[in-house]
């Protein structure tokens, strides 16, 4: 770091030097594609540069980087899709969901859904669906197998895959 370097620039370049490698590795494993991971890691730092938030005294730099990357993956367009679909369906089932309609509750649910969407990002369609059917809908493995036209064994294998993937996503 040269002495003439402005502090923000110095902080960013420290952050970059120390954590870019980690971010790239984390994203590559998450997305299963080195190209996309490299692009996204670059975009993440670009966004931090543009946002000009203070990065000098981050207590958890990796959590900060992964959150920034999450906001890039689940971008505004996708957040809007999530919100619209949720609210539409909520209106249909409103009577059954007394107590789930306060603005605060809707907001926190949307935030939770955004996190889940990020956690599931990078999974194959069938793997993701099996996981959601198992833990959100509470179906049994053989019910899922029938619904998705898969063998019981495959469903179980998919669930293991999904658990490993999600656990990696949460590991920052």
């Amino acid at each position: 770091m040269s002495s003439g370097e402005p502090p923000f620039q110095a902080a960013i370049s420290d952050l970059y030097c120390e954590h870019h490698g980690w971010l790239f590795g984390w994203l590559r494993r998450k997305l299963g594609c080195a190209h996309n991971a490299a692009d996204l890691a670059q975009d993440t730092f670009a966004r931090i540069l543009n946002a000009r938030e203070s990065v000098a005294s981050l207590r958890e730099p990796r959590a900060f980087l992964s959150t920034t990357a999450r906001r890039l993956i689940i971008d505004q367009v996708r957040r809007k899709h999530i919100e619209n679909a949720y609210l539409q369906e909520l209106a249909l089932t409103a009577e059954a969901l007394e107590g789930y309609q306060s603005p605060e509750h809707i907001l926190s649910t949307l935030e939770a859904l955004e996190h889940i969407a990020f956690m599931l990002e990078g999974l194959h369609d069938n793997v993701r669906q099996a996981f959601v059917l198992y833990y959100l809908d509470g179906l049994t493995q053989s019910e899922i197998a029938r619904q998705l036209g898969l063998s019981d064994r495959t469903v179980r294998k998919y669930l293991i895959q999904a658990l490993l993937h999600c656990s990696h996503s949460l590991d920052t």
Partner: protein
Amino acid sequence: MPAPRQIIDEQAAEWMLRLHEEGFSDAARLEFECWKQQSPQHAAAAQRMQDAISRLQSLREQSAPAKAALNAAFTGRKPTAPRKHILRVVLIAACLALPVTLTLKSQYPERWLADISTGPNDWKTLHLADDSTLTLSGASAVNVHFNSTERRIELLQGEILVEVAHDRSRPFIVQTAQGTMRALGTRFVVNHLADTTVLSMLQSRVAAQSANEQQTLEVGAGSKALISRDAVKLSGTVDPASINEAWRRHQLVVENQPLDQVLDEIARHRRGHLQFDRNALADLRVTAVLPLDDTDRALQLIAETLPLSIKTYTPWLIVISQLPQPKK
């Protein structure tokens, strides 16, 4: 030896399913607790999986809208790789195509038709028939029209240094699109920019006139004048000695000059294209002596004093942008 990370994760995932499948029986739970006790890594792996699961389970009460939302988040989404790769290909193609289009768009064709011209990074000194000396810096072009009543140099582009030999009967005239400079015997530099001609007087004086012939100004040694189609005005002073030296050593001497103009000058002296946002950089000013024979070095020198990012994509394309200012 501690178990590798991957194995611990796989065992933890297996445990999650097994607990579920066995209905969270006491026996299964006890065994799971023992497994977790093995190391902090085991416990952490189990914790992460349980976090992932409980994120979904916490929405069970409203599973229909939650599922609709998640489906919406992933419908119409294909892996982004193909799109990105196409983008890369287009970018590379654009990089390759750029020099061609830039060459076509530049004033180079004019140079090809000129009497005397120089390429980028190419300097030429000529002794004219009347004993005057004409030096062209990089990417410059002139036509020479000498007859019995006048000596006229038409500067089509770039910059020249002229040392005019005395000839009382034939005035020496340098002409650009913006105006004319008329002398009997003197030494001066003329730089033809996009919409202005810059005259730097090193010795004696010339009469400068705008192209519409409405304004004429006598410019003496050590003065600088800007000539446009309809006006001539003085613009500060120059140091003849340092300009002489700069021409001898192929340097660009600038004092408190807007960065975009300096980059234009450097661009003239190199092959390939310098890309920059004129408006964004106009506020930055440069005072420097820059080597025009080594424009990479010149750019580097500028970047050492100003907050600039210089990205070299190919030798043909350099992109210069201002680094964001640090937050106060």
